[in-house]
């Protein structure tokens, strides 16, 4: 761990020195910082004394109880896990019908939308023979007369002059 410079005098920045000493005891200083602490310790008896005191009280924690856990703990914990899983499974099962219905509804709506889109596409682009037939009906009604004229350009000229518009029935 990279650290800030260590104060030379043990009396300055006591908290900073203590931090460095504790980190040194814990092996958390990088090589450079560790060397500087060691240099400080070599030159200052008070710092060495501080280090020894810190180490002494830290070692007292080794005397704390480390109690063993009984077998019943393992058994009851596993039972609790099993119960938890069972409860979770039941919850998911209870929600499953609602999810199924939701899926069907979404599927149905999607299908209808697809059918409608398809219908509109077909209606827009599919050629209708009847529509074509209606457009050509005037031509078909006078087909026999028109068939006499062999020149298409002449026919186009007559059409342009409005000669193919049917006269309104005479009144009176």
């Amino acid at each position, binding site marked *: 761990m990279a650290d800030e410079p260590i104060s030379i005098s043990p009396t300055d920045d006591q*908290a900073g020195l203590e931090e460095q000493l504790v*980190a040194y005891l*814990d*092996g958390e200083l990088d090589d450079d910082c560790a060397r500087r602490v060691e240099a400080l310790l070599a030159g200052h008896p008070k710092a060495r004394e501080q280090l020894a005191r810190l180490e002494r009280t830290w070692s*007292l924690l080794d005397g*704390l109880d480390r109690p063993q856990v009984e077998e019943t703990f393992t058994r009851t*914990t*596993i039972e609790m896990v099993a119960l938890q899983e069972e409860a979770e499974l039941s919850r998911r099962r209870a929600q499953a019908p609602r999810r199924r219905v939701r899926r069907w509804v979404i599927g149905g709506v999607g299908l209808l939308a697809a059918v409608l889109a398809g219908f509109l596409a077909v209606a827009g682009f599919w050629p209708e023979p009847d529509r074509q037939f209606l457009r050509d009906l005037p031509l078909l009604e006078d087909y026999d007369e028109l068939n006499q004229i062999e020149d298409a350009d002449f026919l186009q000229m007559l059409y342009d002059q409005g000669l193919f518009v049917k006269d309104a029935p005479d009144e009176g």
Partner: protein
Amino acid sequence: MPREVRGAPEVPFPVGIALVVSESSAQRQALRDPDVRLMLEVRGDSAEAFEELMLRYQGRLVSVLEHLVGDRDQAEDLAQDVFLRVYRARKSYVAGAKFSTWLFTIANNVASNALRSRSRRREVGLRTPEGSGVGSPWDRVIQASSGQMPVRRVDKAEMRDIVRLALEALNERQRMAVLLSKFEGMSYADIAEAMELSPQAVKSLLARARVNLREVLEPYLDHGSRPRSGNGPKSAGDEETGEGTGIRD
């Protein structure tokens, strides 16, 4: 003499964030940590692997929690809560950190919640256990050490009690850091990850905790007498605000 300098700390892995860890990285981690391998089997719904992990960690977990909350029964309840959460979270487990670090991160959260609830209840109830005549753990340490004959040899059981009281006199964060360092041998980086602090904050926290322990225990060790009046260590600002009992935070 100091211990061997540990290697550079790993970059902390935030728990709960979905990280993309390549299979090869996960495999490397699994090879280094057999508990990670077990947890990956638990992710695959292996009950045997879960039981094995429990057997490996239940004692350690209960020990840490007991010294943290000061009550054996509650420690076991909390430990069970931790294992339940581990199993519940198995599908989202990402093998990117040591398993123990991940486990103790959960333990730290569970313990913090429990202690917070307990302190809220205390604020409401304001009850002092009958016959104790003392309020804070600090007072109990003073009481325990006062009136003792100066002794050179200290009874082991008595010493254990004094050390336990000294530990209880620390605030929750200091206590957790001390327990993870002492009982679990975790590095500052791992403790930082478990407690969601920076490594520098952990360094400061542990230093203050150990100085506080020294200042509580030394008078008893040296003279069997109570700490000096003014109650020893003065309070100081803390870069990470913690609960205080009048000793240095």
